């Protein structure tokens, strides 16, 4: 749907923002991205999972095994304070970028 480069650059930000509300496990994250984008964005496991590990090793998120009643144990990722700060910054940058791009692409009236 969108090209690979564009997707890759935004994966980290998408994951962080999905974890902002509450901890989620890996499968859930992948599904959510797909759902919320109306199927326009899909991240296969081989892309998503190494990114999770990388974010965890940077100390932005942390995975923890949680067993909920009636479910199998899953590794839930939680957003750490550092991750929250990074996300806020990335969001700002993203907004500015989008605004700038829109500005440029606005059809000129003259």
């Amino acid at each position, binding site marked *: 749907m969108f090209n690979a480069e564009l997707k890759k650059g935004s994966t980290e930000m998408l994951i962080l923002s999905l974890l902002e509300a509450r901890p989620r496990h890996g499968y859930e994250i992948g599904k959510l991205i797909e759902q919320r984008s109306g199927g326009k964005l899909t991240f296969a*496991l081989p892309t998503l999972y190494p990114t999770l590990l990388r974010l965890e090793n940077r100390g932005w998120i942390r995975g923890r095994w949680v067993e909920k009643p009636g479910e199998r144990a899953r590794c839930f990722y939680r957003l750490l304070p550092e991750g929250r700060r990074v996300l806020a910054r990335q969001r700002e940058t993203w907004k500015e970028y989008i605004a700038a791009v829109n500005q440029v692409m606005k059809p000129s009236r003259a």
Partner: protein
Amino acid sequence: MRNWEEYVRSRLTLPDLAPEREARIVRELAAQLEDFYREALARGATEGEAEAHACAQVRDWDRFAQDVWLADRPNVRPRVARWSEQVEETAYRKGRRWGVIADLLQDTRYAIRQLLKSPGFTLVAVLTLALGIGANSAIFSVVNGVLLRPLPYPQADALVRVHEIVPHYGRFTVAPPNFFDWREQNTVFERIAMVSTGSATFTQGDVPERLSMAYVSWDVFDLLRVQPMLGRSFTPEEDTPGKSNVVVLSHGLWQRLFGGDRNVLGRSITLSGTPATVVGVMPADFYFPNRETELWSPIATPNDPTQRGAHYVIVFARMKPGVTVEQADAEMKTIAARLAAQYPDRNEGESAEVVALHEQTVGKIRPALLTLLGAVGLVVLIACGNVANLLLVRASARAKELAIRTALGAGRRRLIFQMLAESTVLGLAGGALGLLLAYAALQPIRTLGAASIPRVDDIAIDGGVLAFTAALSLLTGVVFGLAPAWQAQRANLNGVLKEGGRTSAAAGGRWVRNALVVAEVALSLILLVGASLLIRSFAKLTGVDPGFRAENVLSFRVALPNASYPDLARQAAFYESLVERLESLPQVTSAAAVQTLPMRGTYVLSTGIVGRPPLPPSQQPSINYRVVSRRYFETLGIPLLRGRAISERDTTSSPGVVLIDQAFVDAHFPGEEPLGRQLTIGNGTNRPYEIVGVVGDVRTDGFDALAAPTMYVPHTQDPFSSMWFLVRTTGDPAQLASAARQAVLELDRTLPAFSMAPLADVVSDTLAQRRFSTLLLGLFALMALFLAAVGLFGVLSFVVSQRIPEIGVRMALGASRGDLLRMVVGHGMRLALAGVVLGLVGALALARLVATMLFEVTPFDPASYAATAAVLLATAALACYVPARRALRVDPIIALRYE
């Protein structure tokens, strides 16, 4: 349903990832694949379709594994850890006996991890140990190279020197007729040879060159068991007068003169005007009897029984297998006694002595080197004390960790092992760094020792030094690890856990820490006393008036070949004109010639006083003999006390004259007028010499020897074929060198001026050995002082940090700054004082060891002891002050909250 964990595990290879990390990744991926599978099922797919859907999520497992591995690289462990784990596992599997090794490996790994966790502590400990161990390795490499390693000849322990023992003088060079009798009569030596060193002028091209050579018995190479690498050694026939014009070259000379040409054999070279045929070349690393010798020629001394008084050769021998030095010595003494009875005229009272060649070479330096080795031993002990203290402090900080480990079932033995593992790892790290330090120190040591240490080129870091360093590192590791380990195992579990794990173990270790600091101070005091005794000796020595002024004097040597200067008159004339030419050089105030430089070798002759009852030759006094040119006394600044100096009128044909020094007067003319008396001198001229003047004493045998009676004869009346020249200048003598060399060449183009050096350097070289040991001991003492101060500082800092609550209470209750300062500094100074007292006792007990190295300072010199104690206490006070200041800055409120 498929077992997804197994599915993932069999496809995902993640090398060197920590096992628990790898397990987590596998488990999580398996969970996700299962989610995909269940989702497909829920959508109504068959089991097979659902599995296929899940498996399709990852197509390229290798690429995926690589991505995961890269993303998780911070958790990849070093290869070494993997390897040691494997060994550990194998060892555990092998059973009980190997279990110990596995424990050891585990302890070591744990120790390394613990040490890396506190890099500051580790760095300080390793540096301290490196300093201590490095000093030991460096000195041991000297001891090893000089004292321990055999001389570089096969079966060198059978090689000996044989001395003559001459009444009043002791060990002496040998008279050839005695040598021939020894060779004839002994049964203990496989071979015995005589050697006489000298030099010869070699001319090739424009510039003549002086080569160091040795005249040797024909079979000396067989005696040494070293054969020429090219050609042959000498034959018995060549060791006879008239047939000895053959030479064997050293490897170095062969390279230098002939570029290593293998056709050199049979070539003729001219030495001091006489042709000689090259018959052999020695191997590259061979040297004998010293490293300077560049070629060898047969000594070819005739066995002339009338020359029994002419002592001038040195004798080497190889003992037969099974013969000891004592047996050889006993037999040689018997033979010498027989010769003394047989030739009472010349040999009366003479004896012989056999000394192992190794002992002969290095015996003199042994006490100094062993003292230095002892000194660095003390330094490493102090370093151990410091690190032990650091470990103790750390151990009390870790008391809780240890208590928990005990609670979890770690045995006492295991805990001790653990602590020892840490200290051993520290020891080995310190040793490794120390070895680097020692390596860096070797060149400076060789340079410093060049003039004073025999075999200085044999000093190197070899297997022996490596083994010594490794052993010392392990030993230090165990030594400084014992106290903390002992303390660790007796930590009171309940107490520690209850008290929040801070004070209990600390209280228990307090006396150990204090004792360590006291010991450190005591040890460093011993070293400082030793060093200050040597330094004071050195200062006294350099303050000694040698009786002559060596400053601004250039010295060099010229040797006249017999071929071109056959008669005495021509030799005397040459010397006269050379002195004249030297005196005409700019800036030169006077010049002179002498056959033996003061402090640079002895030349004694038996002497009789005319008018006194004649003594048999063996009982005549042996007096220092100097043959000098006219302005010798003026050039060296030796005062003329009475009578006259040598004048132009004292020629070859005029009546013999002699000047004597005050020591001669005191010894042989007490209360008499020596002027006008006559001497008979055993110089072969067979004429009386009238005493015409008395000059000041000169310390001919070195600063530490009293002036021996000396007599001076004009060179015109007993010329020598080689003379030293002394040139006094108003400028830098070294800058005169080329002009002096030129002056010699202008007189005779074939003559090199050699051994050229400022006289002050020559004189200073006589102190080289003392300078070496004084400088090094001083350096080690400073290191000891520094380490002890650091130790004291460390302990007090810790004490202060432990007592912060107490200090807070005291402050709150109104203690003044003075009170607190007194409390902390008082604690430190009590320790230092105890150490000083102990150290003084130790120093008094050990001072006798350096007695032989002292000069005009007794081993119990009160000034040295007092000054040292003062320096140490001052240093201690400084080390106490900084922690004390910290105590004063304590804020009572914060301090009380500390609890």
